[in-house]
C-alpha cells in the first residue's frame, strides 16, 4: 500500500492541470511513494490529449468521466486510489515543493484530516470583488494558523486537503447528490465522527483562480441556496449555522410581502432587476463609491441565495412548512467545569483529556466565562480554551482574580479585628 495518493478532479483546465502535474514531480518527497489519479470530468478541451502525452516520474493514472459533479469525480478518484493517505488537490492549484511532505507529516494519527494553505495572489489592478475575495481567503487561512483556533465544518476546503483513506472510505466520501457545499457537508460528517482537524501552512500552493468574478459568485450563491436546503435536511441540528435560518423568523411576513411573491412566482422579473443592479455596481466601482458597492454586493448575494433556496419549493407556504417540519434534534452536550486556581496547566490538561463540547471556566469559585457549545465545531481542547481566555476573557479573568484577592484580604482583616 503506497503511502500517498493524490487525487485531482479536473474540468476543462488542460494547461493548468498539466502544470500541476509537472509541479508535483518537483516535490521534496520520495516520488516512488506517491501516485496521482486525475479524473477528467466532462472535459471538452484538450485535457485528454495532454494527459495522454504527458511523461511523469511517478505513478500516474487518469480516467475520463461524465459526472458534471466535482464530488462524484473526487469519489471516483478515491475509489481508484490505493494510498494510505489521500491528498485532494484542485486543478487550479500550483503546488509548492513542500506540499506533499507537509501533508504527510501532519498525519500524526489515523484519525486526522489536514487542511493545507492556498495562497491567493492579488493582481495589481484588482477590482473590488477580487480584493474582497482575496481578503476572505487569506483571513481564513491566517485564522486557521492562529494558535488555539477552533476548527469547524466550514474549514474543509476541498482545494488542498488530505485525509486517511480509512476514514474517507468509512464515511463513504463526499455526497455526490450535492452540486455544491459538498465539502462543508463532508466536513460536518467528519466533525460528528470526531475526526481531528489540523492545519499546516507548510502544505501550501498558489490558488490560480482567474475565473471567479462577481457574476460567477452570484450564480454560485444561487446554487448554494439550493444546496443548503438539502444540507439542512441532512444535518437539521446545524440549522442555525446556515443563512437559510434567516428566513425562519415569524416576523418575516413572507406570505404577505410583494417581494417574496415576485421572487417565488415571477422570478424572471426579479432576476432582471437583480442583473440590472449588478451592472449598476460597475458604476459604483468606477466612481469608487465603496459603501454603495458593498451594500449592493450584500443585498445581491442575499437575493440570489434566497432565489436558489425558494427554487427548491414551489411556493412560499412550502418553504415555511419546510422549517416547521425539520426534526428538532437535541444533541447531548458534554460540559465540564474547570477552576484556574488549581493551576492553569492542570485545568487545561483536563480539557485535553475529556474533550468536552463546552467548558465553564472559574477562578476559585468565581465564574470567568463559558466557551461552547458550538454546533459544527470540534470538541474542545486546552489550547482553544487558553486562546479564548487570552483574547476574549482577559478582563473577566482579572476581575475574578481581583475579586478573589479582595475577599481574601477582607477576610484576613476581619480575623485580625476579632
Amino acid at each position: 500500500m503506497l503511502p500517498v495518493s493524490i487525487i485531482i478532479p479536473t474540468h476543462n483546465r488542460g494547461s493548468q492541470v498539466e502544470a500541476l502535474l509537472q509541479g508535483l514531480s518537483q516535490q521534496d518527497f520520495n516520488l516512488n511513494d506517491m501516485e496521482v489519479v486525475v479524473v477528467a470530468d466532462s472535459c471538452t478541451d484538450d485535457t485528454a490529449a495532454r494527459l495522454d502525452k504527458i511523461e511523469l516520474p511517478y505513478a500516474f493514472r487518469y480516467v475520463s468521466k461524465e459526472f458534471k459533479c466535482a464530488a462524484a469525480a473526487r469519489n471516483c478518484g478515491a475509489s481508484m486510489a490505493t494510498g494510505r493517505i489521500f491528498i485532494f488537490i484542485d486543478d487550479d492549484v500550483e503546488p509548492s515543493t513542500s506540499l506533499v511532505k507537509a501533508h504527510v507529516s501532519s498525519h500524526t494519527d489515523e484519525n486526522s484530516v489536514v487542511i493545507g494553505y492556498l495562497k491567493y495572489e492579488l493582481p495589481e489592478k484588482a477590482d473590488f470583488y477580487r480584493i474582497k475575495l482575496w481578503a476572505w481567503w487569506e483571513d481564513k487561512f491566517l485564522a486557521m494558523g492562529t494558535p488555539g483556533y477552533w476548527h469547524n465544518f466550514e474549514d474543509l476546503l476541498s482545494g488542498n486537503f488530505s485525509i486517511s483513506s480509512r476514514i474517507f472510505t468509512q464515511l463513504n466520501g463526499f455526497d455526490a447528490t450535492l452540486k455544491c457545499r459538498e465539502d462543508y457537508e463532508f466536513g460536518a460528517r467528519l466533525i460528528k465522527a470526531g475526526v481531528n482537524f489540523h492545519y499546516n501552512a507548510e502544505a501550501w500552493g498558489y490558488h490560480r483562480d482567474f475565473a471567479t468574478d462577481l457574476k460567477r459568485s452570484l450564480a454560485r450563491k444561487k446554487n448554494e441556496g439550493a444546496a443548503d436546503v438539502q444540507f439542512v435536511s441532512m444535518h437539521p441540528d446545524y440549522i442555525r449555522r446556515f443563512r437559510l435560518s434567516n428566513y425562519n423568523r415569524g416576523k418575516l411576513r413572507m406570505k404577505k410581502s410583494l417581494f417574496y411573491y415576485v421572487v417565488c412566482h415571477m422570478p424572471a422579473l426579479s432576476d432582471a432587476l437583480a442583473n440590472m443592479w449588478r451592472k449598476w455596481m460597475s458604476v459604483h466601482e468606477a466612481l469608487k463609491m465603496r459603501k454603495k458597492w458593498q451594500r449592493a454586493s450584500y443585498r445581491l448575494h442575499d437575493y440570489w441565495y434566497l432565489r436558489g433556496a425558494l427554487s427548491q419549493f414551489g411556493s412560499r407556504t412550502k418553504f415555511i412548512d419546510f422549517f416547521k417540519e425539520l426534526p428538532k434534534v437535541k444533541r447531548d452536550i458534554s460540559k465540564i467545569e474547570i477552576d484556574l486556581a488549581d493551576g492553569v496547566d492542570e485545568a487545561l490538561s483536563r480539557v485535553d483529556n475529556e474533550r468536552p463540547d463546552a467548558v465553564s471556566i472559574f477562578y476559585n469559585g468565581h465564574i470567568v466565562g463559558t466557551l461552547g457549545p458550538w454546533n459544527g465545531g470540534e470538541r474542545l481542547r486546552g489550547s482553544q480554551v487558553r486562546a479564548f481566555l487570552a483574547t476574549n476573557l482577559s478582563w473577566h479573568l482579572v476581575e475574578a482574580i481581583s475579586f478573589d484577592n479582595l475577599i481574601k484580604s477582607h477576610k484576613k482583616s476581619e480575623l485580625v479585628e476579632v
Partner: protein
Amino acid sequence: MATAILDLHVENLPSTIDGQHDYEKAFVLLRYKNKPVGKTFLPVEDGVINVRKYHDKIMTAAAPMMWQKKAHDFLGWDAHEESNYKLPRATVAITTRDRAEDLRRCLDALISMPDDGQEIIVIDNCPATNDSFELVSRYKNVRYIREDFPGSSAARNRAILEARNEVIAFTDDDATPDKYWLRALLRSFRDPRVMCVTGQVMPLELQNEAQEWFESFSPLGRGFKRIEYDGAAFYNRFRVAPIGVSANMALRKSLIEKVGLFDEVLGVGTPTKCGEDHELFSRILGRGYKMVYDPEALSWHRHRRTWTETRKTLFGYGVGVYSFWMRTLLKEKEYGAIILPWKWFYYTQFPNLIRSLRKKPGSIPLDLVLAELRGCVVGTRAYFRSRVNNRKLNKKQNRQPHVAS
C-alpha cells in the same frame, strides 16, 4: 521651563526621583515587563518627583493596557511566541541630510539592538558636506548610499530598491529607536495582507513651549493599543492620519510591484512639503492591504525645536495634505476627494479658528491655525508646481523617474 522625560517600569517604581531642578514637570512613559503601557505627567516639587504620592495617577494611566498583559502572564500566553512565526529579515534604512550629530545618536541606538540578521543602510540625500559619509564609514556593517535627487520620497524609494531583505524598516535620523523596536515591527508581518506597520513615537526632549505644544496637540504617538486598518474592509482610505507616522514604519519589499513606491512629486524637499507618507498609506489601503499600528515598536523622536519651525511644520502640513488629496483625485480617480477640503474646514479647521480667536483654554494658538490654513490655500497649486519641477529635474539628471503606480 522644560519637562523631563522619564521611562519607568511599573513593577519597579522608585519611591522618589531626585535631581530634577531644571524641570517643572516630567513626562513619564510607563512600561510593564518592558512593553509600553501608558504615559502620564508628574509634577516636580523642589527638584524631586514624589512617585509614591502619585502612585494612583500612574496606575490609572497604566491600567487599561496593563491588566490585559497581566492576564496573559497568568495564562502563560504570548501571542507572538505561540504562533511560531519566524521573523523575516529586515533592512533598517535611515534617510538623512546634513544632520551628523542626530545620525550618530540614531546609529548608536541601532548598533545596540540584538542582531537578527538585519542590515543597516544610510541614504544620504543631497548632502552639502561629507560629514555623514565620514560618520558612516566609522561604523562597520552600515552601508552608505548617496541619493542626489532631492526629496525624502526619492531617498526612501532608493532605500526600498537597494534593500537586500524582504522588509524595510524606516527611521528618521533624529529618532532613537528602542532596543526591541525592530522585533516589534516585524511581528505583524505574519499576516500576508499586512503591507505596512507603523510604530509609536515618543518625544526625546521637551525643552521648550513649542515642543510641549507639539506633543500635547499633535502627538506622534497614537495610543498604546495595537490597531489594524483593513483596506479590504473599505476602511476610509483618506483617514490615514491616525495610523502613524513615517518616522517609524516598516514596509514589505513586495510593495514595489504590488502597490508602488513613494510619489516623488510629494514630500519633504519638494514644493508640497510633506504628504508622501500619507499618500502611500492611502494607496496601500486603496489596494486592499492592511496597515498595523503597533505601540510596542517604540522610537524616541526629537520634535521641532523652535516656534518658527513648528509654524513651518503646520504650514507644510496644510500644503502636504491638499497635495496628497489632489494627487489621489487625479491619479487614483478617487472622486470622493473633492468633498474633503470642505469637510476638514467645516468640522476641524473652522471650529479651531473660532476657539482660538475667542482665546478659549486649550485652543490651538492662532498663528499655527492660520499657518495651516495658508498651507491649504497654496496646497493645490504647490502640487502642480511640484509635478513640473519633478519632470524638469528628472530630465536634467537624465534619470528614469520611479513611477508610483
